[in-house]
């Protein structure tokens, strides 16, 4: 994988708006953004309703994913182009799902909805219906997904990258600052995790930084990209953005996204937690 395989720009999207084998999909944290307007011929995937199991805290399973894509009119040989708000957080999250279930051709619109808007490109209110398909997913690719036990055993051994904001890492905030802070779990981070906020990988307009800048970013923070890496955030969407940078743009193969992330780890009994701005030792504590 490299940048040109996984990213497209706005001009490319405009040239393929009427291509029947290219499916534009908007995925937003604010799931009503699509209702206001969207790129012409784009469909919506709702990350809460469509991508999460509605009973247990987990993803949709293989059969549910197949039903979703069939209903949305996405075929196995379609090229899926994802975009969204929040600098493509949830579009990256959806991208990771598509890869988890083995979709062949999937790309992100670099800069997402924000850059498209800042360039005053066309947005429409018309909703389209694609004809249903019979989508077949592969088994989940566990090589890109970490669970809580994987994180606990990686402490002090593998790279753990906390991609939340510095104040969330230190335990001064419990959630991104556009959300209320009332939470029940502990603040802080996984001991020995380094803080590399997802935002350092993106420009102000939401596009990804250059390959050279991205490589420097992780190497200067002491991340040895030749060993195993787990990325996490609060609920797994911002770390999907970092997983995309490492695994898809830079082509690092041994990278997993921990989708349970801090809302799970910060509520576990019996695991070490580190407070403050330093990674800390394996036993955790306060720095």
């Amino acid at each position, binding site marked *: 994988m490299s940048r040109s395989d996984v990213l497209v720009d706005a001009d490319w999207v405009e040239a393929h708006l009427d291509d029947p084998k290219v499916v534009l999909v908007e995925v937003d944290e604010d799931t009503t953004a699509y209702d206001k307007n969207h790129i012409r011929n784009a469909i919506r995937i709702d990350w809460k309703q469509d991508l999460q199991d509605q009973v247990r805290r987990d993803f949709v399973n293989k059969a549910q994913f197949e039903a979703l894509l069939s209903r949305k009119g996405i075929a196995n040989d379609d090229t899926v182009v994802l975009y969204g708000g*929040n600098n493509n957080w949830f579009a990256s999250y959806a991208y990771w799902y598509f890869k988890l279930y083995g979709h062949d051709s999937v790309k992100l619109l670099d800069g997402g909805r924000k850059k498209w*808007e800042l360039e005053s490109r066309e947005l429409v209110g018309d909703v389209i219906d694609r004809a249903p398909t019979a989508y077949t997913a592969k088994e989940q690719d566990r090589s890109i997904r970490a669970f809580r036990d994987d994180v606990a055993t990686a402490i002090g051994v593998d790279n753990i990258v906390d991609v939340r*904001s*510095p*104040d969330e890492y230190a335990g001064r*905030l419990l*959630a991104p*600052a556009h959300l209320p802070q009332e939470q029940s779990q502990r603040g802080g981070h996984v001991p020995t995790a380094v803080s590399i*906020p997802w935002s350092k990988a993106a420009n102000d307009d939401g596009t990804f930084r250059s390959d050279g800048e991205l490589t420097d970013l992780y190497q200067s923070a002491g991340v040895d990209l030749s060993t195993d890496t787990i990325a996490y955030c609060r609920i797994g969407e911002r770390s999907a953005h970092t997983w995309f940078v490492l695994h898809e743009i830079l082509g690092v193969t041994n990278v997993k996204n921990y989708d349970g992330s801090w809302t799970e780890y910060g509520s576990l009994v019996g695991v070490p937690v580190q407070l403050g701005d330093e990674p800390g030792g394996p036993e955790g504590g306060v720095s």
Partner: protein
Amino acid sequence: MCGATVGGLTTEGIDVAKETIIQGVVSRSGEPVGGAYVRLLDKGGEFTAEVPTSATGHFRFFAAPGSWTVRTLAPGSTVDHSVVAEKGSVAEVSVEL
């Protein structure tokens, strides 16, 4: 968002005593600007959050006490404002593009 009080968004339904709120409105020539992007940067200049403004130009962050920068992006404009936030109060920011 209709019926927002003069000076900012209503905080009805929010436990203000527990939160550290930074909020405001973005306008151009006195008219509210919806769909602008407002970024919250911490004291080190690091990105903390970003929200689009509502149809009435409003935005809101739930921050921590301290010094912050509010950066507004709109087609053709980028504007920075410094703001100090305190727990239990609402820091209002008025952004003119």
